[in-house]
């Protein structure tokens, strides 16, 4: 059956006009129910960095040399009668040169990663000191360095602009750091918390369902390393292999040092929760414990990677992160 085009006069008696949130009357013959305007703003995405990859160039070049060798071998095999040509040699030399360049570039990146780690460490200590002493020039220097550190980040452009707009204002040392923290680091903190939550959730689930202990161990190690690396990338670092190893050591040291503090951090409740879970199923309990461990490593990694100490903003709590696992995430 076809539906004819129809107009409904909103002021007519038999028509009742229902705005969003109102309950439609029961007796009206025609009900015009206004639609709720959906806010289709998607959640901000973590930055996707598409960079030119030197390691890919290395593998490409090496593969090129290998294929050259194979080609040469084929060439010899197929056309043994022909004398070898010069240009192949030059090509190989060129490719080797590329490989050398790539090796140098990777080494440079490793060094850059290590320099970044030291720089972050120094910045944090300076900021800490400046905040305690309320030292204005020092705080300004730290904020400048922070802006420089994130100059490459388009996703932080609004925060950078807001921070720069305040350069001429009269603001005390600690307050300036607090403002910079709110403008520049708040979005990163939110993303970092989500990263840790996700990793903890993955580890918990995999531990709970994996058939063999060896698998969980490998998975926990891989997930934890991946988490540390991603957190470092989020806060602006690009640790290479050596950098990551060093970073991991720092994180573990930090975890050991701050381990005793964590008792107050809702860990007792979490452990009791683990006891309950373990009563239900041993594997479930293990999953919860592994997830907790990952979350704690994540929090420690945030501490190590963050260029400022937590001043006004709260450090993510283990309980919050574990709650974040259960909360529905906006995709």
């Amino acid at each position, binding site marked *: 059956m*076809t539906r004819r*085009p129809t*107009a*409904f006069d909103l002021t007519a008696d038999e028509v009742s006009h229902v705005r969003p949130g109102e309950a439609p009357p029961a007796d009206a013959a025609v009900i015009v*129910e206004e639609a709720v305007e959906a806010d289709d703003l*998607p959640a901000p995405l973590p930055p996707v960095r598409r960079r030119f990859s030197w390691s890919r160039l290395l593998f490409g070049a090496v593969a090129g040399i290998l294929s050259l060798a194979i080609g040469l071998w084929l060439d010899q095999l197929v056309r043994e009668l022909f004398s070898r040509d010069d240009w192949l040699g030059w090509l190989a030399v060129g490719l080797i040169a590329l490989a050398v360049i790539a090796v140098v570039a990777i080494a440079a990146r490793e060094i850059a990663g290590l320099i970044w780690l030291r720089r972050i460490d120094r910045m944090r200590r300076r900021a800490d000191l400046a905040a305690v002493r309320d030292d204005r020039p020092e705080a300004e220097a730290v904020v400048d360095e922070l802006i420089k550190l994130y100059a*490459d980040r388009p996703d932080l452009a609004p925060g950078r602009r807001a921070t720069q707009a305040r350069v001429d204002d009269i603001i005390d040392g600690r307050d300036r750091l607090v403002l910079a923290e709110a403008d520049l680091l708040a979005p990163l903190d939110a993303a970092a918390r989500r990263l840790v939550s996700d990793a903890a959730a993955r580890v918990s689930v995999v531990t709970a369902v994996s058939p063999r202990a060896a698998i969980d161990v490998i998975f926990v190690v891989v997930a934890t390393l991946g988490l540390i690396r991603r957190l470092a990338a989020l806060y602006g670092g690009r640790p290479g292999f050596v950098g990551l190893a060093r970073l991991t050591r720092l994180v573990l040291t930090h975890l050991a040092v701050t381990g005793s503090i964590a008792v107050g951090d809702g860990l007792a409740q979490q452990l009791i929760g683990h006891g309950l879970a373990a009563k239900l199923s041993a594997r479930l309990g293990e999953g919860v414990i592994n997830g907790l461990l990952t979350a704690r490593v994540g929090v420690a990694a945030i501490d190590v990677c963050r260029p400022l100490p937590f001043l006004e903003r709260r450090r993510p709590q283990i309980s919050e992160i574990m709650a974040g696992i259960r909360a529905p995430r906006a995709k």
Partner: protein
Amino acid sequence: MSFTTFSDEARIALDNMADFAWSLGSPSLRLGVTGLSRAGKTVFITALIHNLTHGGRLPMFEPWRAGRLLGADIRPQLHPDVPTFDYRGHVRKLTDARVWPDSTRQISELRLTIAYESATFLGRSLGRGKLDLDIVDYPGEWLLDLPLLSKDYRAFSSETLERGREPRRTAIAADWLAHTSGVDPLGPADDEAAGRLHELFAAYLGAARGGSLALSMVPPGRFLMPGDLAGSPALTFAPLDLPESGEAPRDSLWALMESRFEAYKDVVVRPFFRTHFARLDRQVVLVDVLAALNGGREALVDLEMALGEILGCFRPGRSSWLGQVLTRRIDRILFAATKADHLHHASHDRLELILRRLTDRAIARASFSGAEVDVKALAAVRATREATVRRNGESLPCILGVPQEGELLDDHLYDGKEEIALFPGDLPDNPQALFRPPEAGEPGFDALRFLRFRPPPLEVTAEGVSLSLPHIRLDRALDFLIGDRLA
């Protein structure tokens, strides 16, 4: 390419090289807003500027979402001899008087400079973080002239007369056709006779374009919107009933008309094409599908033909950096069904399907030559809200708004003040059903009726700041058209 001469090509290439040299420092992008009259070009351009300059809500426009869009500004335009697009006047009309802008009577131009933060390292360190967007607004009727470039007077005459003899047009074409058949093309050249013929012909074109017929295929376009050329010889010609073969004798009416037709192409059409259309980077083709649906099957088929002929004049293709220097090509084309707010969003997919069917030849051509093509239903300014109407146990997807003064539905004339909920009818699942004669039991075009609504009242926040104009999918359109250049 048959509709441009060799010297045209050379001039286009020269202009391109000059542009390229200029734009090394400041990249510019030419956006061609094409659409027949009343397709919504002026409103589209106005809404685009308004949303970019007022920081409108454009969540699906990636630079806006990432916070990389810093702002936009209207800057001095490219050609100093062309009037500037009256952006402020149009916005005032839309927001204060709440009426749509009048149909465009003359060409105008605009340059919008968009400031952004590049997402790439190279872009940030080397680029200047600004993009110049050049847009041209013009009467849509003028577009109908582009296909004339590849036709001679004989072809133009026979095609125009043939179209005039179609049964649906007989009522409006009778006077003109009767007069034309009484004129001997081989007779002496007579200015007065030519003027009389032109008058009748122009009256017929106007009647075909306006009124309930809503036909699209009514060239030459300047006859409908002459601009400052009204009354000049180049605009005073008409088709004649020519003999099957032979050349025009000297000093005959035929020769006079033919020379004026050629002058029209040389003086009017070609410069317009060369300065404004031969060198576009991106193109958005606005189509008012709903008006054609109101007009019935003939209007729809006519629209299809007009779009096919016009779009054949553009140059789509993948652009390379080297090609960019000599020949600019349109590497992205968006086909947009405008006024999508006059329809519930549940029907937008079907609207897009109809548009796809309407332009399938142009889409195939553009895709084949390597250009990216997208089809969207959009509303540059959203005039309605949505609602569901429950009546006798059935629920109808409706839109809420104030119909324009003079709109008619079921013998009710609207005064431009009352707000109604409108159910405009169901678009068919299969767009093909609209293009062929209806089968028994199938709903025809009378099962559809789209009213035109007045522009929305502009919302004002508690602080008294007026918000930007609401829209539907303008952000997606922008992302497709210019998003990659703001990367």
